[in-house]
């Protein structure tokens, strides 16, 4: 049976197509103005990658901020459940999932079956989310993906004292104007991000194994500093960390389709 999961976030949308026990295809796109367009684009591309059409999908679960607006979804679930589910399927020993997305961040605790135990979430403040890094990339005039690698060779990271993204941006501009080394500024930015996440994760308690999902998991600098701050080494995923929510949705789709008689 073929099922699908579709995660429509604030900045990107992802679709995952799942066969009985493997990922057939996945797709990540930049969001369109309307969530239904984003979902359709991501799903169409994922279907094309697998040589399938929408009729081949037995059941589809949507998640993410646009999840209630997806016409082809049979049901929807919160991204918190989906990230826990997806991460647990990939790494069954996982107990703590840290999801850092474009516009929010979450720390999620799951039990040995991948069931959600507790979570904390920040979706009120851009600090500690992908948006913080976007603002900073623009200020540094580098690509978002460059901030991680740039920071690795830093010897003396700058200290960013402001938590507010707006004020931190002014602080970063000031460092650049003073001639601070770009590597040191990038490292300071990643440390600020990791520090904010550390506070969030502390509220649920760190239990190994720890997995980081979401787009910011691709920033090697944030991952490194967060590992140091939490004193753990995180498990690396074999799939793109951005598709974990959509994967979890697809796994729920499979369970639901079984319960519904697998039509």
């Amino acid at each position, binding site marked *: 049976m073929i099922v699908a999961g579709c995660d429509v976030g604030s900045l990107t949308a992802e679709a995952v197509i799942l066969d009985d026990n493997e990922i057939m295809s996945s797709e990540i796109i930049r969001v369109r103005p309307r969530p239904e367009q984003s979902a359709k684009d991501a799903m169409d591309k994922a279907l094309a990658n697998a040589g399938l059409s929408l009729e081949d999908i037995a059941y589809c679960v949507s998640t993410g901020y646009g999840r209630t607006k997806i016409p082809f979804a049979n049901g929807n679930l919160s991204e918190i459940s989906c990230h826990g589910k997806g991460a647990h399927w990939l790494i069954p020993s996982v107990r703590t999932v840290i999801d850092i997305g474009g516009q929010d961040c979450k720390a999620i605790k799951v039990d040995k079956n991948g069931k959600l135990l507790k979570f904390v979430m920040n979706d009120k403040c851009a600090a500690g989310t992908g948006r913080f890094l976007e603002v900073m990339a623009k200020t540094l005039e580098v690509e978002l993906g460059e901030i991680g690698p740039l920071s690795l060779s830093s010897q003396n990271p700058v200290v960013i004292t402001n938590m507010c993204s707006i004020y931190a941006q*002014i602080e970063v*501009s000031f460092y650049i104007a003073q001639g601070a080394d770009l590597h040191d500024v990038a490292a300071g930015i990643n440390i600020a991000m990791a520090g904010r996440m550390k506070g969030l994760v502390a509220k649920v308690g760190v239990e190994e194994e720890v997995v980081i999902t979401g787009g910011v998991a691709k920033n090697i600098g944030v991952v490194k500093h967060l590992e140091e701050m939490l004193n753990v080494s995180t498990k690396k995923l074999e799939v793109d960390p951005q598709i974990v929510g959509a994967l979890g949705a697809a796994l729920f789709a499979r369970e639901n389709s079984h319960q519904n008689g697998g039509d």
Partner: protein
Amino acid sequence: MIVAGCDVGSVMTKVVIMNGESLSHHIIETGFKPDIAAKNATDKALAKAALSFDDVKYCISTGDGGKNVSFANKYLSQLQCLSKGAYWLIPSVKTVVDAGGNATRAISVGKDGRVLSYRLNDKCAAGGGRFFEVLADALELKLDELGPLSQRSKNPLEIASQCTVFAESEVISLINEGKDPVDIIAGINRSITSRMASLIRDLGVRKDVVLVGGVAKNSGAVQSLEGYLGVSIKTVPTDPQIVGALGAALFAMDALKK
């Protein structure tokens, strides 16, 4: 007796020159070299009064970058200077609200313009002047256009995001949805002033309430804040951005008299 007050804010540098009772002032962007901004603004303010730098007998600096002013004789806190300046302009003041570029302050003013207590938000840009700048940029408007435009709104929109970064995206979405910019601006004024009002209520609202700082130039924000606080708000009879610098100059005058 000629003195200078020099308020180096994170965004703007304000200088007031006092020559007896007569004032001149100048405001420039701080940029990344506060000391140079302070010197330039002082020279410009002196030039307006046909004075030169050597005429200044005493200078007090204040503001985030005030400690970097090498030619100042002394540094004093913004709270002291704002309170002093507002009291000199409006002696009936009991509460000064300063909404500047990087912080919002509410100060309870006592006898002779002394600071009794205060509340400060310099941690989050929401509820501060920087929020207006970011959103004016998103709307491609000048800061001083926000006030008059917002007062034409019949249906202010609600801005749900508290975070300035998220609110900017929200405003862009509202523009793309074809909403009336006038209603968006009125929504922004309400969003910011509701947060300012919480800070002021936490301190205690004592009349007269005087609003200073760049936000005081936004008539829509003043009106909206009046609505939230349920009191009328006074604005100063000079540029509301120079009140801190004026207070510094008044302290400089006091120092010379001693």
